């Protein structure tokens, strides 16, 4: 319980750090970014937006503490400002539209690649020294691939050349979004290629990590004893070696999530997928600072939440963490 509170406190501090960073960064930009932006949008922005922009970059008469309190106040009211590129749509609306797509695609793919990669890694570690070792150079290659590049490759092969899957987007335009079988089918069909790109290019990471942990665990005395006792291979592999090797892998999953998710969301760009990764790309292209900030905030919170879930799983799997002081 104490360990859990400690973790909870850590996530709170991390969230605070990310939010404060969001607050400070625009204020650290040298020169006069507001004028630069106003010049670029020459007169398209209303007076409210200009005021909001000055607020964002700290160009108000209030001192920095007042600004900071004001910033938190707006945050709690869900006010992330207004997007420049889709002026005057609020940032929250854009994020709200993109988030379900990203959670569905990136969330499912990250979990899938972890599960498949870990399972394969356990098997490859178990069968070490046999032909399966030749998987390693291949997986190493896969882990070194830029996610978005692999996206380009699968689009080229499966969408452009073979016409097996749609080229881009989240669903076929013209279908009314809803829970109709037609729409769901279209969503699944559109998600297959991006999923393939994300899973294939992130699976090796888990596979190699789990393989190494598995080999380390296999030389533990308790695995030797399990074999000596005459237990079935299946039980030794799962209950003795696998479950123990999984623990560090799960801890690693939590810590690597930020890196993996960051890589995956760019894949959306290749597919013009309507998630927040694509929105981030558009924000960058249009120097839409409020939108960039909002997206950074929401991704950070999502990753922290996922971390919390991973921690929870860890506690379930490892009785040692459940020890009451």
């Amino acid at each position: 319980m104490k360990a859990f509170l400690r973790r909870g406190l850590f996530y709170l501090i991390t969230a605070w750090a990310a939010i404060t960073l969001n607050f400070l960064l625009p204020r650290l930009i040298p020169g006069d970014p507001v004028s630069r932006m106003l010049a670029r949008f020459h007169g398209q922005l209303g007076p409210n937006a200009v005021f909001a922009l000055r607020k964002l970059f700290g160009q108000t008469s209030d001192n920095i503490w007042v600004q900071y309190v004001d910033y938190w106040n707006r945050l709690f009211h869900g006010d992330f400002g207004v997007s420049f590129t889709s002026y005057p749509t609020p940032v929250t609306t854009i994020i709200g539209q993109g988030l379900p797509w990203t959670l569905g695609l990136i969330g499912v793919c990250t979990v899938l690649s972890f599960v498949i990669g870990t399972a394969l890694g356990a098997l490859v570690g178990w069968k070490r020294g046999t032909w399966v070792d030749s998987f390693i150079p291949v997986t190493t290659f896969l882990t070194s691939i830029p996610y978005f590049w692999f996206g380009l490759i699968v689009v080229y092969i499966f969408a452009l050349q073979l016409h097996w899957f749609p080229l881009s987007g989240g669903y076929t335009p013209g279908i009314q979004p809803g829970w109709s079988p037609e729409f769901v089918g279209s969503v699944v069909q559109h998600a297959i290629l991006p999923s393939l790109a994300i899973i294939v290019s992130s699976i090796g990471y888990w596979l190699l990590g789990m393989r190494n942990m598995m080999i380390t665990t296999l030389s533990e005395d308790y695995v030797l004893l399990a074999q000596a006792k005459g237990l079935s291979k299946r039980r030794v592999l799962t209950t003795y070696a696998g479950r123990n090797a999984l623990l560090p892998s799960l801890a690693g999953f939590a810590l690597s999530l930020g890196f993996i998710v960051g890589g995956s969301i760019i894949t959306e760009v290749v597919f013009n997928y309507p998630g927040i990764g694509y929105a981030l790309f558009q924000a960058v292209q249009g120097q839409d600072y409020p939108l960039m900030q909002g997206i950074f905030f929401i991704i950070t919170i999502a990753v922290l939440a996922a971390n919390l879930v991973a921690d929870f799983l860890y506690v379930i799997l490892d009785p040692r963490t459940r020890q009451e002081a």
Partner: protein
Amino acid sequence: MSTTTLAEVDVDPSETAARGKGAKFAWISGFRSPKTIVGIVIVVFFALVAIFGPLLVTTDPSAVSFNVLLPPSAKHLLGTTHTGQDIFAQMVVGARISMLVGFVAAVLATLLSLIIGLAAGYLGGIPDELLSLVSNIFLVIPTLPLVVILAGALPSTGSLSITIVISITAWAWGARVLRAQTLSLRKRDFVEAARATGESTFRIIFREILPNQTAIVAATFLSTVIGAILTQASLAFLGLTDVTEWSWGGILYWAQNSSALSFGAWWWFVPPGLCIALLGTALSLINFGIDEFINPRLRLAGIATKKGAKKALTRLQAPKQPIRGPRRQARRTGGLGSFTRGDVILEVKNLTVDYTSASAPVHAVDDVSLTLRRGQVLGIAGESGSGKSTLAYAITRLHRPPAEITGGELIYTNRDGSTVDILKLTDRELTDFRWEELSIVFQSAMNALNPILRVGAQIEDAIAAHRPDMDAQGRSDRVRELMGLVGISIDRVSAYPHELSGGMRQRVMIAIALALDPEIIVMDEPTTALDVVIQRQIVEKIMELKDRLGFSVIFITHDLSMLIELSDEIAIMYAGRIVEVGSAQEFYRNPKHPYSQGLLGSFPTLSGPKKVLTGIVGAPPDLRSLPSGCPFRTRCPHAFDACATIEPVLLPLPTVEVPSANELRSVSCHLYDPELTRVPALAEGVAK
């Protein structure tokens, strides 16, 4: 007594030596593996391209022409873009920025990791808490969006700014690893010693700690390079870098923004990603070499094949070849065979176990023959590295690569008098045989119990594996019965190992060993990890159970006084060989081998007369370079010229009459060989 030395010998003799020399840069030897060499060749190739390529390419990568979207040809090796730019020129020129950003960012990030990791690990306390917190925050915050907003905030998007932004977000993992490493190094003897002698903190960090972390620093650096190159490519692809400056990611940006995909211009977007992936793979391959050095278990993984074990077993069927040079032949017929009586349960005959990973095989157990009788305790004693644990594992066929049984027999006698050679059992037969007839108790119960499984379940699954017909109720009853036998209260059945004391855990181990009522239990230093009072309780428990249940025990320890007390017969091991065998009482009264005399002379008796503790000079020998002749001669106070030339073998003592088998003594020493009395004065000196 250091059990770690033994463990290291059991893993890989060469490993200890490499570490022992204090070879701080020994990990560079990992670069000899073919995988690593391939990696280095690729990295060097790309580095050369990055350095010299732009000087050699005559085509301006930005020059437009009318040759638009040409596929690869002799003129344009990688084809052209939609504005007729030469992609090959872009790739070569782009290599420079991509690699420069990657390597410089990695240098900066690694420096940051080092400073923060070393400071946190060395200072400890509140600075450590704070620094760890900061690095964990940086780890958890999603990197790429952070880089994006950082890069978006920058007034300039030149390579230098991008490099700095990447390094700011890439140091955390390295800092975490280095902190952990520093923490463990800080507690080592040589650092403690440096601190005790008043060396400055600065000197300790840079002279004592840092040089020992080179392998980890190198591994961190290489993986950071991969991460940095990937991040740069992502940023360039998103258009966050200065895309007029050619880099691999920049080429992808132009390809994406110019709809290279819809033109089907694969030659445009394939090469940059391929080069990034190749370079990343090469760096990972180099890292494999370093990883295998840091974690030797990974290296052994390659050897741990079924093939290896099968090979060793088939070799056993082949006629045995003499392995070494001159050795005395056993002249008296029967040799140890004359020990056998009707109640023999296990006979170890000429068992040899080699470590095969070293360049030349090392005999960890060398031609060992022993006899265990029903209901008796055979004690085996020796220093660390004498091969006693290797012998225990070999008898149960639980030895692990690189250990390999290369010769001998393990004859087990069933209750009906039929015999079976354990070494000839197939895997299936062995699985059935082991635990049913022969079980083992490991040295450390903490390591031998699965930390995430309740102890009751760990006893029960052994029963379930061998008694598939028994129902859950039956198994549960048996578990309770076993726990009662070894003296653990029944309610601990659902405890996890970490919830039990050391003594309780060892009792659980014994309960597991007893689960199927085996005939023989091999005990490999079962009490070493326990304090003296608990040791006594456990030993008494074992003896009580032995008398009650009638099993036989092979008890292995370095604690000779305990062994004499509980054994019927004692064997002394030195350098992988048995140097003396005899009944415990006879042995205690009158040890024959100079090594046994040394061992007995190195501890006080509680009841006997006062004596001067002598001990044995020198250290256990290096199995890879044993002295010629008798392996003990360099430490032996009685060595004479024959000891250097002729290898002694275990022979029954000629002086002992033969009233009963139990009093038979065998010694492997030239002092007792009547044919080698060329220097009689020394031999008599021992007899006094």
